[in-house]
């Protein structure tokens, strides 16, 4: 019990610093949604039901461009396809917990909770399944309330917040910073390089498709490089 409680606590402590990333993103969404004409209730419903900033901004942008409902829905969901990869990557770690707990964890599966958890799980394979679930829940606990509260604050404060320069870059910086420490191993470096290059090559394909192709090729690259290195030694 002590170990489980400390797993939750360790996750929580790891998650707290990401408030710096989540808070401005949620504030910006609240402001942008209000400016687009959404009511506070509609803005909040979106943040509570979807919890995925990039797709929420996509939906907002397309609605303002006058796109039909189905196009908005399709494009916004495509942006979230990466979460299928998160879901798959967590199976070896959280697959053994009861279904209702997995169903609950799925709601809380966001970029930060996933990235922080998977790094820890891979660094400490001896962690028990129960401890892994507690760690995951701990990591996301400081972020979800901030996501709700800052969306609300942004929606209510509306245009009072001046549009900052270069806030767009919070997302890629966070992603790169989370992945960079893993690149010391050659197979990981190879996979990351193939992933980035192919994403640029496939940029002209419909939203989400290029990402999936690049990721699949990168997974193959990493797995083959690792197998080759193991055989050589």
């Amino acid at each position, binding site marked *: 019990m002590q170990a489980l409680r400390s797993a939750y606590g360790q996750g929580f402590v790891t998650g707290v610093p990401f408030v710096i990333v989540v808070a401005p993103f949620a504030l910006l969404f609240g402001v942008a949604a209000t400016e687009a004409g959404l009511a506070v209730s509609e803005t909040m419903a979106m943040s509570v039901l979807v919890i995925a900033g990039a*797709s929420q901004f996509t939906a907002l942008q397309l609605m303002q461009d006058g796109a039909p*409902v189905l196009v908005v829905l399709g494009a916004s969901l495509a942006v979230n396809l990466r979460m299928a990869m998160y879901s798959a990557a967590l199976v070896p770690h959280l697959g053994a917990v009861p279904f209702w707990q997995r169903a609950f964890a799925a709601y809380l599966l966001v970029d930060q909770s996933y990235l922080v958890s998977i790094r820890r799980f891979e660094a400490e394979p001896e962690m028990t399944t129960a401890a892994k679930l507690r760690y995951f829940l701990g990591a996301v606990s400081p972020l979800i309330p901030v996501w709700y509260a800052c969306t609300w604050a942004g929606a209510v404060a509306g245009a009072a917040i001046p549009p900052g320069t270069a806030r767009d870059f919070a997302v890629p910086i966070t992603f790169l910073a989370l992945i960079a420490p893993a690149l010391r191993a050659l197979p990981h470096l190879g996979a990351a390089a193939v992933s980035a290059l192919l994403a640029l090559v496939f940029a002209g394909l419909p939203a989400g498709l290029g990402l999936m192709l690049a990721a699949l090729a990168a997974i193959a690259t990493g797995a083959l490089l690792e197998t080759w290195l193991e055989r050589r030694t």
Partner: protein
Amino acid sequence: MITGPALWTLIVLLGIGTYLIRLSFLGLIGDRPMPPWVLRCLRFVPVAGIPAIAAPLVVWPDATGGAVDPARLIAAGVVVWIGLRTQSTLGAIAGGAVALYLGLAIF
């Protein structure tokens, strides 16, 4: 602009769809044993997926209308370099932010 009941329908469907994407593998596969090569591939999912999401955002940022921006390219390089060197995610974020604002001031 979509409003009223259509907007609410859109919000609810987007919520349900996103949740089903999140639940997909975790909900379906559960603890069924998987062959070693599948587990090996799953371990590469993060490092294979994240750069593909980040690369277009770095090279063709929305904020510049998709034009290549030296400040953002350099900042991204700084983030990866610091992350590799120090193994610290937050250090890399901080370094990247400093590099970005310095770069924006210069270019």
